[in-house]
């Protein structure tokens, strides 16, 4: 069964700092299969891209996910139109 046959929702992905550099992309519009409509689902979907995505987003790696500018946990839902940012632990101040 191809992903293309499943309903999808469009979200905005944002990658920051070291992850932006590693992924080679700062921002992209992403078609997330609706059965993956959570942070955990999105991460699984992104890991399925393989290579650097599978590596950097592996469980146990240190990164944070923010949905619409708020850091959330793995079970947080992801809706169409959401801006989902993935970034390393912060180091400002």
């Amino acid at each position, binding site marked *: 069964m191809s992903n293309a046959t499943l309903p999808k929702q469009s979200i905005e992905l944002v990658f920051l700092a*070291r992850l932006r550099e590693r992924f080679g992309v700062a921002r992209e519009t992403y078609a997330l299969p609706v059965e993956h409509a959570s942070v955990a689902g999105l991460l699984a979907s992104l890991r399925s891209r393989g290579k650097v995505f599978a590596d950097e987003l592996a469980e146990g790696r240190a990164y944070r996910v923010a949905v619409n500018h708020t850091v959330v946990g793995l079970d947080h839902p992801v809706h169409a139109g959401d801006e989902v940012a993935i970034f390393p632990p*912060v180091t400002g101040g």
Partner: protein
Amino acid sequence: MTAQVRVQTQDFDVGAELALLRQNNPAVGAVASFIGCVRDMNEGDSVGLMYLEHYPGMTEAELHRISAEAATRWNIFDTLVIHRIGELRPLDQIVFVAVTSAHRGESFRACEFIMDYLKTQAPFWKREATPAGERWVEARASDDAAAARWKSATP
């Protein structure tokens, strides 16, 4: 209570900011403030240049949230947070936090609270240039510990 938050590339004048923050309010008896500066050494390596990236939109939202949280915990008047982004060099000012209150304990507590949470929650990242090349600064466990203190702290 006003909470000012500014994310900017340009430097800031702490004396002028402190005077503005007090805004001729004669109820202010205490002003606690903190300046963070770029050091020329980090983790044992010399640092010649630093680049600060942030996440526009979320940064301002987090800094407002942190400032509002401080105002719910302590009896304070006004807060100011300025954080610079872009290229910085040793001796440059990075961050400024100032808090006014009637008595000193509240402004000290709130100022340190804001700094501790800013360090662990606000989406800024530092990349530094050392003789061995550029590197992203790693998050420090001691910063998480500093922020965690406030979870159980009484005002």
